[in-house]
């Protein structure tokens, strides 16, 4: 399954209005480090589906959302809780480090 794509247009309903915390992976096709993080995010999506909604957004196709949240480096992961930005993780990390960053949201 992995992370579900989200766009500028369904951002509000899919992310901000979600009743579960949402982990969003900001990525792009040309970003080498994103290619390392995305498979880990997909794994987290499969393992933590009950606790966390996991989505990914292509910043090339969806510049509005990236601009709105001041993304200046990718990969950036963000966690949204009750419609608010709750955590920001900039740069590629291994799974163990990511899981510890996400400990507040995972089971």
């Amino acid at each position, binding site marked *: 399954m992995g992370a579900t794509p989200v766009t500028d247009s369904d951002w509000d309903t899919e992310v901000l209005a979600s009743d579960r915390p949402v982990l969003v992976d900001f990525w792009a096709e040309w970003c080498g480090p994103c290619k390392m993080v995305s498979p880990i995010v997909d794994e987290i999506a499969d393992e933590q589906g009950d606790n966390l909604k996991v989505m990914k957004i292509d910043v090339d196709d969806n510049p509005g959302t990236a601009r709105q949240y001041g993304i200046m*480096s990718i990969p950036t992961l963000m966690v949204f809780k009750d419609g608010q930005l709750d955590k920001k993780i900039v740069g590629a990390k291994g799974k163990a480090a990511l899981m510890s960053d996400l400990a507040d949201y995972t089971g």
Partner: protein
Amino acid sequence: MSSTDTTHQVTIIGSGPAGLTAAVYAARANLEPLVIEGVIEGGPTGGQLTLTTDVENFPGFADGIMGPELILQMRAQAERFGTTFITEDIVKVNVEQRPFTLETASGNAISTQALIVATGAKPRRLDIPGEAELWGSGVSACATCDGFFFRDQHVVIVGGGDSAMEEAMFLTKFAAKVTVVHRRDELRASKIMQDRAFANDKIDFVWNAIPTEVNGSDGKVSSLTLKDTQTGEFSDLPCDGLFLAIGHIPNTWLFDGTLETDNDGYLIVDQPTTHTNVPGVFACGDVMDHTYRQAVTAAGTGCRAAMDAERWLAAGGDASHQ
């Protein structure tokens, strides 16, 4: 810590051109090499090439090739001949007894007769106030990753080598203006790269200047404080982003106290071989090369390391290699 009973013949740490070339050669010598690709500690999986765009100087690609694509091809080639991969970072290495043992971040234990160190190097940072605070919020060491976010803005690149020029030119695709800040009054970059940079209208230069502080607030860079190396005067250079291309630091911390390094921290090998001071441990690529640091030279030393390891194993892992 979990463990397997298998002892590998050859294990390679690193997945850039050095490690993958070593894997191709070791695999074709039927040594069934294991490559520990690494995730983040020593840089990205696939190494520094994965952060580049067009590679124009790797022989065999007349029209150039994208860095990430070149790495994917090398990986596929290594896999085709029987290389296996573990995509994890190594946290601990013991080369004090044989077989050597390695421990991954998730606690897997790996045992190996010969070890090839191809851990590469990581971008150097300035270590000045503001840099860490604004890292990822306007300060970056990867133009190809982050240049996109500086459309129509003014960015500064620090450095004077080929990679600084390459990144400066890449950044002109997005930025309105790119200022190269260099601590000397001439560039170290190759002639062709210098010519291209000087010919680019969007690139200007500040010479004899050392950055002393990154200024900004609310997660945005606003300026860079510079010190003039001639007059000692300080000035403020307004900018929206700061990219670093000031060289690399070899990734040797796994071998602190066991493998010998030179004054700059690079692993020492017994030239022209790739033998380190520990028999059975070989080094290749940027972790042992502070002179050339090219994809093709890394690949070349990777080949040498695999052949050295093969001979060493064939000789029964003899301690000597005269």
